[in-house]
């Protein structure tokens, strides 16, 4: 009798299953639901996305300690030299050693001897001085025309008066004077950085700047071509093969390099190889726009524009999606994931691009520090010459130490010794020490960039686990409960069999 009752119960369930369609029918299992919920909670608590936050903090603390230590180390070395120069009891280890230091630094930075550098600088500095005086005079003479506001060089846009031809004519001489002043500044900078580390860095920055501009211009044009192609696609009937191919090509072109750019050269440059990712970012963002377009279109009933336009866009974008990926668009939750994935990819690349731009800034700061250092070293050289020019007024006996001379020197001679020493100390402080700090900042930037890449990967893995986990948890939480099944059986008129079961 019991076997008969079980058979009837089984039959009832089979009928119910067959009626509902097996694929959509699942019995709720409280045990599995509990396990799925626990697993989901565990994944959530693991907070994969936040795993690197403590690492970032540790790296930032380390970078700060590095900067402090480099500074202390450099200042310690600086003072050690100063003490040695003033402790030495002969010429060799005081005056000569100081000269040696200055000469070597100038040689390393500019690739030339102190004498040659000063000759080059002096010639250009004289031209610069005259150019500056001329500009100041011209700027003063047109104060009435500029409403009492002094002209600045380089001339800002607001003082170029593009729509006032008459004013432009009156200010023409001042504009020219500014042009000459900028040229003189440029020439002096070139004269200083004619060789050595400064030339190498200056050339590198020039190359990066030039290529960066080319990349940006090229990308701007590619974006315009893409927008035009997308407009054409939307204007044509959905699925138009030519228009679809046009958008697909324009989308691919976004990440292409300028036609005259050398991939080899760009890939070899650690900064440029990331700057070219701006194109890839634009491509990912355009793809995201497509995904968002599809999502808006699928969000039936409430399109921002008229329903017909929206449907048309959905069909056009859907066809485009199919053409780009060789497969139809995924379901809505899939699109949300795709959108999230594209966002993460784009963010990751953007981080690398930002790091590359930070690298450029640090390199520019390093070049500025080198210029600063050369300027202090040149001051030291000039103080040395002025001291020599004083002849017998300033004590300098062969073999005599610096401190010995200091003791015998008049106030004006001491002034020159102090000027020379302080200029060298300033050169060390704002030059060598700062450049060493910038080198460490560049290295720290490399460490941060490595962490950026890891973070993007971790976020993608997190999305890949968390979203399916949520879906699985929902699926395990669903299904037909025994109560619902009983109701279903009764509703289907199978009560007679069920009664037998009961």
């Amino acid at each position, binding site marked *: 009798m019991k076997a008969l009752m079980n058979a009837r119960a*089984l039959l009832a369930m089979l009928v119910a299953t067959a009626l509902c369609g097996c*694929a959509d029918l699942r019995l709720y299992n409280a045990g599995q639901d509990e396990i799925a919920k626990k697993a989901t909670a565990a994944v959530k608590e693991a907070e994969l996305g936040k795993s690197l936050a403590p690492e970032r903090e540790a790296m930032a603390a380390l970078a700060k300690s590095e900067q402090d230590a480099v500074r202390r*180390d450099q200042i310690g*070395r600086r003072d050690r030299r100063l003490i040695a120069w003033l402790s030495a*009891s002969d010429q060799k280890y005081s005056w000569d050693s100081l000269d040696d230091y200055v000469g070597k630094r100038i040689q390393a930075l500019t690739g030339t001897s102190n004498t040659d550098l000063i000759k080059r600088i002096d010639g250009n500095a004289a031209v610069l001085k005259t150019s500056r005086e001329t500009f100041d005079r011209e700027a003063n003479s047109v104060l009435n025309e500029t409403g009492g506001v002094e002209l600045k060089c380089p001339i800002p846009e607001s003082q170029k008066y593009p729509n006032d031809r008459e004013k432009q004519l009156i200010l023409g001489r001042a504009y020219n004077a500014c042009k000459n002043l900028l040229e003189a500044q440029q020439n002096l900078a070139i004269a200083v950085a004619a060789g050595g580390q400064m030339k190498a860095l200056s050339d590198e920055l020039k190359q990066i700047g030039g290529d960066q501009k080319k990349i940006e211009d090229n990308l701007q044009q590619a974006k315009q071509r893409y927008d035009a192609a997308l407009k054409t696609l939307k204007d044509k009937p959905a699925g138009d093969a030519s228009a679809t191919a046009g958008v697909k090509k324009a989308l691919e072109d976004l990440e292409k390099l300028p036609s005259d750019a050398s991939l080899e050269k760009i890939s070899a440059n650690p900064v440029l190889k990331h700057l070219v990712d701006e194109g890839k970012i634009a491509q990912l963002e355009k793809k995201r726009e497509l995904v968002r377009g599809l999502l808006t279109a699928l969000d039936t009933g409430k399109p921002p524009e008229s329903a017909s336009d929206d449907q048309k866009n959905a069909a056009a974008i859907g066809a485009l999606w199919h053409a780009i990926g060789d497969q139809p668009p995924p379901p809505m939750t899939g699109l949300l994931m795709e959108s999230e994935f594209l966002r993460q990819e784009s963010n990751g690349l953007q981080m690398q691009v930002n790091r590359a731009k930070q690298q450029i800034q640090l390199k520019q700061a390093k070049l500025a520090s080198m210029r600063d250092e050369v300027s202090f070293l040149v001051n030291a050289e000039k103080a040395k010459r002025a001291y020599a020019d004083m002849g017998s007024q300033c004590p300098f006996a062969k073999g005599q130490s610096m401190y010995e001379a200091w003791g015998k020197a008049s106030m004006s001679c001491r002034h020159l010794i102090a000027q020379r020493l302080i200029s060298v100390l300033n050169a060390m402080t704002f030059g060598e020490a700062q450049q060493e700090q910038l*080198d460490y900042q560049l290295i720290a930037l490399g460490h941060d960039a*490595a962490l950026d890449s890891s973070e993007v990967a971790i976020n993608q*893995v997190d999305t890949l686990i968390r979203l399916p986990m949520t879906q699985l948890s929902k*699926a395990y939480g*669903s299904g037909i409960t025994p109560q619902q099944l009983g109701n279903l059986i009764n509703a289907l008129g199978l009560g007679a069999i069920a009664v037998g079961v009961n």
Partner: protein
Amino acid sequence: MVMAGCASDQALRKSSGEVALRIDQVSADAETFVAARSRVMKARTATLTALEANALDSEQSNQAEISYHAAAGDTAWVELIERLRKAPDLVVQQRKDQAAAAAAAQAAVQNAKSAADFKTAKLTAASQALATLAEEPDDKDVIAFYKDFFKKVQKSVKDKADQADEAADTAESASKEKGAAASSSAENDKADMTVKTASAVKASK
């Protein structure tokens, strides 16, 4: 038994297995990642330690030299050294003041703006909340979609991991190189100064 044969249950089991595998993979990758990061941290910490040791060495040696002169009653020398050492600090302060003044002027220009007050943070919060509500409920197609999607993302993740490895290696070797250079340069400086001091002492005798 009957239910076990249903496609939805099979898909769930399969998906659960796949997600479990991914989680295992993440755990394994995390261990490798931590080991690699530890290597980087070790290299950086070693460099930092070397720098700090060099700094301390210079500072102590400078202080010792100054104290010898002070003890010998050569206060003029000590005062000269102190005045000269402080000179760059004055320039540092001047530059800081100039930079602060320039930044304040720039900030004043930048902060000059319309007084209209839109609560954009609230609007963003509302749009984020609505975006969350707009998410679709579960769909068995979605579970199937994950498989293809996983392959795609995995490639990207692998690329990022490779990129991170490469960047970490470059930065790590740069750190090591700098650390070695710092130590060797400090040694040279020290040797150089020792020769000079010895010679100075000899000459003074």
